[in-house]
């Protein structure tokens, strides 16, 4: 597809957790916990406050349609600030300094005076009902010319455990939010820029690593479509696909718009109470409902059921809007009779609403309030279909190639000052004094240049979580290739085999590498020792155990002789060509306790001897 032709405009919003000692507005550690470890829990209700104009932010208002009770898990590593029971502490100076470094890396300019804001978020993920956030820098640039618009420092939200239950360990971890202009024009470009930005962030050496520590929101629009924000894409590799999927979704909605216009489609403004028609229905949902409302969408027949994403129809969009009112979903005549609703029932609803063959009737069921709210939402969304693509925030459906509606794009209306945090002046001399860390891409090039690593390995080492181990090991005289292979390939293979490598501390890895360099252990022993350390053995003990059970050269010579004798016929047949296969057998026996070079040398001599003798 020619993305320039269809007018693709995309921008990125990258959220990256910072690896500071303390949280942004309290002195708690930035440590994630297992939810089993929570020490107590409490619950709250959240309400949006009315603004001066008597208007609520539209995103906040939609969340308010259902009064929800949120439960929070608290830990011995969280405090009253996370509970919204204490005013925030001063903005974390370490986080601000780090954010300024990041701003400088993106060629941005810091604001002169930082003001912390409250951004209304009443989905329960913030105990206060708002997220504290501050604009730190503006106007940066990326290689290729795309503009970085803003960089904000904000507090991470609480993690949802399930439904309306949230865990407070994550709440308040410092997070930078970096937004680019909508200046990317192909799916690949979006992914490349996201990759580059991630690399720059990791170059600081002070950002969190691992699943969920970096999240990409992608803003996407095509000509005639509208800005849609896809939230929280965690996999870098998925970004280009997510852009492609959204482009095709918007094209699908635009095609529906054209058909609706050709058919002069319209939405009946009045809904009809059809509860009595379903008094004896076989559909359990409808039979139990206190109120069933129906609305006729004139000229929508067949389009509501049309697929616009894999497994998602226009009707799925209506349903997402209706669910905000607490109903489980909707029924529409494009997919009926089904779900226990009979053809007769469909006919009687159609008759009551005077629906024609080209019309689609939508049904919602629930309490009187829920049904009234849900039918309004369906009507609203159906009208939007005539305009094409609504501006929305959407989320990626797990394991699917599609997205679902979350909420309208939030407006500026939901920001007001956090009066409990004083403004901070960014001093010019502080900004000037910030020394930029070497970019990981530059570091990789340097490893090739100075340490002689091949470019693939150099890049892997530089981008690795264990970069620190590599740097220290090389400084202590460990061969760069050994250090690089160990922290990249060896660790990767061990993980693949199910070894919990994340349990291996940097110091342990370093000790193993040093022991190889000192000749105490053979490098072939590293995978086995990593496995031992990862499963709870102290590293010194593992190394000692290995040294005690290792073989002397004489032992290896005896083993070599025995292996050759046992395979005498094969050896005579293959001559010197038997070295390779025999090496495999012998290495298996010494199980990495002797350096491969030594083994190979011993075996070669024994083979020569044997061939000469026979």
């Amino acid at each position, binding site marked *: 597809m020619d993305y320039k032709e269809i007018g693709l405009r995309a921008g990125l919003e990258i959220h990256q957790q910072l690896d500071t000692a303390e949280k942004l507005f309290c002195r708690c550690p930035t440590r994630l916990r297992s939810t089993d470890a929570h020490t107590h829990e*409490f*619950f*709250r*209700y*959240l*309400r*949006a*406050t*009315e*603004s*001066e*104009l*008597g208007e609520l*932010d539209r995103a*906040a208002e939609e969340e308010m349609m259902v009064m929800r*009770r949120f439960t929070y898990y608290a830990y011995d590593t969280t405090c*009253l600030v996370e*509970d*919204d*029971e*204490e*005013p925030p502490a001063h903005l974390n100076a370490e986080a601000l300094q780090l954010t300024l470094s990041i701003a400088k890396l993106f060629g941005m*300019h810091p*604001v*002169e*005076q*930082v*003001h912390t*804001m*409250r*951004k*209304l978020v*009443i989905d329960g993920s913030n*105990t*206060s*009902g*708002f997220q504290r*956030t*501050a*604009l730190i820098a*503006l*106007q940066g640039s990326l290689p290729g010319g795309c503009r970085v618009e*803003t960089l*904000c420092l904000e507090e991470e939200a609480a993690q949802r455990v399930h439904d309306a239950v949230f865990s407070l360990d994550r709440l308040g971890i410092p997070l930078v939010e970096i937004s680019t202009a909508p200046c990317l024009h192909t799916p690949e470009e979006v992914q490349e820029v996201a990759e580059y930005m991630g690399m720059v962030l990791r170059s600081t050496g002070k950002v969190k690593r691992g699943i969920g520590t970096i999240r990409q929101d992608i803003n996407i629009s095509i000509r005639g479509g509208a800005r849609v924000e896809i939230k929280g894409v965690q996999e870098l590799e998925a970004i280009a696909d997510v852009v492609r999927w959204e482009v095709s979704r918007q094209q699908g909605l635009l095609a529906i718009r054209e058909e609706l216009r050709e058919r002069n489609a319209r939405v009946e403004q009045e809904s009809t109470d059809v509860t009595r028609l379903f008094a004896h229905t076989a559909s359990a949902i409808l039979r139990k409902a206190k109120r069933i409302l129906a609305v006729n969408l004139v000229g929508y027949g067949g389009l509501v059921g049309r697929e616009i994403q894999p497994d998602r129809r226009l009707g799925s969009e209506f349903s997402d809007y209706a669910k905000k009112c607490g109903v489980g979903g909707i029924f529409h005549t494009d997919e009926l009779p089904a779900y226990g609703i009979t053809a007769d029932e469909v006919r009687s609803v159609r008759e009551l609403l005077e629906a024609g063959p080209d019309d689609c009737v939508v049904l919602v069921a629930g309490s009187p309030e829920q049904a009234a709210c849900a039918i309004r939402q369906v009507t609203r969304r159906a009208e939007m279909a005539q305009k094409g693509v609504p501006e929305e925030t959407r989320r990626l459906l797990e394991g699917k190639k599609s997205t679902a509606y979350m909420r309208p794009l939030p*407006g*500026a*209306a*939901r*920001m*007001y*000052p956090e*009066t409990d945090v004083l*403004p901070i*002046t960014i001093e010019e001399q502080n900004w000037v004094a910030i020394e930029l860390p070497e970019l990981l891409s530059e570091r990789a090039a340097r490893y090739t240049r100075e340490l002689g690593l091949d470019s693939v390995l150099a890049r892997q080492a530089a981008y690795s979580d264990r970069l620190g181990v590599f740097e220290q090991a090389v400084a202590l005289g460990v061969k760069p290739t050994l250090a690089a292979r160990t922290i990249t390939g060896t660790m990767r293979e061990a993980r693949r085999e199910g070894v919990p490598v994340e349990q291996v501390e940097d110091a342990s890895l370093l000790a193993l590498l040093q022991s190889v360099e000192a000749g105490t252990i053979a490098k072939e022993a590293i995978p086995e020792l990593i496995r031992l350390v990862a499963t709870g053995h102290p590293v010194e003990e593992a190394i000692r155990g290995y040294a005690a059970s290792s073989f002397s050269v004489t032992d290896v010579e005896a083993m070599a002789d025995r292996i050759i004798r046992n395979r005498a016929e094969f050896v005579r047949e293959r001559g010197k060509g038997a070295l390779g296969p025999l090496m495999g057998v012998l290495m298996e026996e010494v199980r990495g306790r002797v350096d491969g070079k030594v083994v190979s040398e011993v075996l070669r001599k024994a083979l020569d001897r044997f061939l000469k003798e026979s």
Partner: protein
Amino acid sequence: MTLVLTPGARVRFTFHGGEFEGTYVTEREGRMVIKLENGYNLGVEPAALLSSHLPPPSPPPRITTIEQDSSLPECAIISTGGTIASRVDYRTGAVTSQFSAEDILRAIPGLGGIARYRTRQISSLLSENMQPGIWRDLAHAIYHEICEGVRGVIVTHGTDTMGYTASAMAFMIETTVPVVFVGSQRSADRPSSDNVMNALCSARAAVSELGEAAVVMHGTTSDDHCAIHRATRVRKMHTSRRDAFQSIGIPPLGGVEYPDLTLTLGPHARTRQEGEARLFDRIEERCGLLTFVPGTPPEVIDSCEGYQGLVIAGSGLGHVASAWVPRLKELIGAGTTVVMTSQCLHGRVCDRVYDTGRDLLSIGVIEGEDMLPETAVVKLGWVLGHEQDPERVRTLMQTDLRGEICRRSLHGL
């Protein structure tokens, strides 16, 4: 360059070669605070300003008239300055407090289902600036509302000194209906504020069978129930938590469940009375509370010269250093009534156990029983406002008048 900009003015300014638009909010430490289109504020050098203009005034707020349900009992809401309701102007980010009945009902619609309301604003003070003079105005206002026949009175108050004011009202008004104090610990502009739940629970208490002055605030950190505390036995025991208010020495009078607003009252709660309320509005303002701290020189007592009453928060059972005794003797000799309470807060004063205590009794110090020091100082001012005779004053200070003294020290409290 001095700027004369009106908050709300649209401005254009430069920032490192780029031009930005926003709304002027205020001036802060020499910089213009500007709200950008994306909602963020930032501080900008005044020199960066390119142009400004005042936008046409925004349309007047959409006023929805609030219909009160005439079939419901009538309550009075009297505000003193605590913000139970507020509104955010997202254009400039300003948060304004709401006082009129309509505004409060608009902010907390659930109130309309419990009662109908008449509102009065006595003051708009930060509660640390509260004065006995305003207690008097408040007492008159409450008394007036009770005489007008309201079912109950709700007083909104800043939480810092709410306990003192509630205690003062308990003494100044012999009430027949509930006089309920309520506030919020977490600001009313935040979606998580305790204001709505506290307000609803207080309204529920105001139409209940309760018949005394009380404080109604969160009972726990969760939004599960409010506790009803006796005005003379309640104390703010935490700087910021929602459940900062605690009953000391007695269990709470009762509670209100949330959100169903089921109310329960304990057997010790005083219930509604027939007959007329009475007002005792005099209060001696020259009273104070002095906390004894080891090593404090006795000269500190000199600063209390001229006080008609002095409450001491002594150590343990009610002690001060022996060196204080002669000075206190002089003070008492000069006509000051001195009452001993304990900085332990929990438990009863007994100055008969140790020598220092016996010395204090011998110079005329009055044992304040198990009264909270803050309640004792409010009570002393009120007693001295109505009674001059030293023996009568002593008797009144040691008699339970409004539930401030427990005759028995109960287990587990």
